[in-house]
């Protein structure tokens, strides 16, 4: 049903309706943002990825082939971009020392204003950051975006067995971290 509605909007956009694109973007922008934020750990990077993804979406939506669900196609773009950014950041961190000013700016521009929420997110970020990127990807998609292994497999191109194994290790580590905190 959701797919039908998405496909309908995509068809309208292909026919030239920009408002159909706006509707589609508004529907998924929050999911895109939060997925990127959980993967990257801060607002600024998540904002960059969200804008990038929406621009890509606008550009490439006309080439969507309707063979898969729209949201898995979209998640594929978000995860690829997020992983690319993480790799870039890793390289930057390797070359330069992390800039304190930039970190400050990242927290200052946050769209989360409530201090308690900020603290919760910081804690979550700390836990997720300890996971290797591939495990973090599966953990976020499964636990926060509530996708099935089959859907994650469609997004990441990995086997369901491999994903289960990754999720197992991620979960094990997360549980250990949470126990240690208590």
């Amino acid at each position, binding site marked *: 049903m959701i797919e039908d509605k998405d496909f309908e909007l995509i068809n309208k956009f292909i026919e030239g309706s920009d408002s159909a694109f706006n509707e589609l973007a508004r529907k998924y922008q929050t999911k895109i943002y939060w997925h990127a934020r959980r993967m990257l750990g801060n607002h600024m990077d998540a904002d960059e990825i969200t804008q990038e993804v929406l621009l890509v979406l606008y550009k490439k939506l006309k080439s969507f082939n309707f063979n898969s669900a729209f949201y898995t196609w979209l998640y594929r773009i978000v995860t690829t971009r997020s992983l690319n950014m993480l790799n870039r950041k890793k390289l930057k961190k390797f070359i330069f020392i992390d800039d304190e000013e930039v970190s400050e700016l990242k927290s200052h521009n946050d769209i989360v204003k409530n201090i308690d929420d900020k603290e919760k997110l910081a804690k979550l970020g700390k836990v997720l950051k300890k996971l290797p990127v591939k495990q973090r990807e599966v953990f976020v998609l499964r636990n*926060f975006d509530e996708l099935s292994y089959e859907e994650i497999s469609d997004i990441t191109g990995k086997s369901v067995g491999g994903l289960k194994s990754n999720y197992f290790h991620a979960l094990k580590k997360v549980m250990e971290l949470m126990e240690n905190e208590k």
Partner: protein
Amino acid sequence: MKNNKERVLKYLTGLMAEDQKTAFENECKNSDELSHLIEKYRGNLSTLKEMGIADVDERYFINLLPGLMTRKEKRNRHSFIVRFVPVIPAVAVLIFILINVFYFDISIPYSYEKILAETIADSDSGTIDQLVSQYSASLIDEYLLDDETLVEYFETLDNSEVELSVQFNYQVTDNYYDYDDLSEDNIEIIYKSLLNKKIL
């Protein structure tokens, strides 16, 4: 205990086969430890999930799309300019070629003028010698007449003297062995061109 933890994790992640899963669920019914662990891990996961839910400034999402569209338009404008940047050198080269072609079509190259000046200077004709001496012998120094000097020189001549120069062209050519590849037609073209340009 450790083994139980791993089993619970396998159960929660779906790593157990269907028969293993059923057996494990039956075991859990009789084991407080296992059911407690499952509850605990599920609780941890939902806590973690709750930690990811936050109140956000909704204006961000409201303004996201309009901001993006403005950015896209700016990008398009920029890319329009960028698209034309490589064309600029090509156009410059084209203009340069056209100017040169146009220039060579309507004018005689400097070298011909020099050849002519040298030819005149080298002439055995007494009349040419007289013309030269009217102005100054120093202007023609061992065939090295520069363009400006030549123009200045010919500007001093009156019409009858110019006519005389034209009449002498065949003789001039014949006498100058270094430029015997210069055809009579070319000599005539050079003279006429110099006349048109008011050099002669």
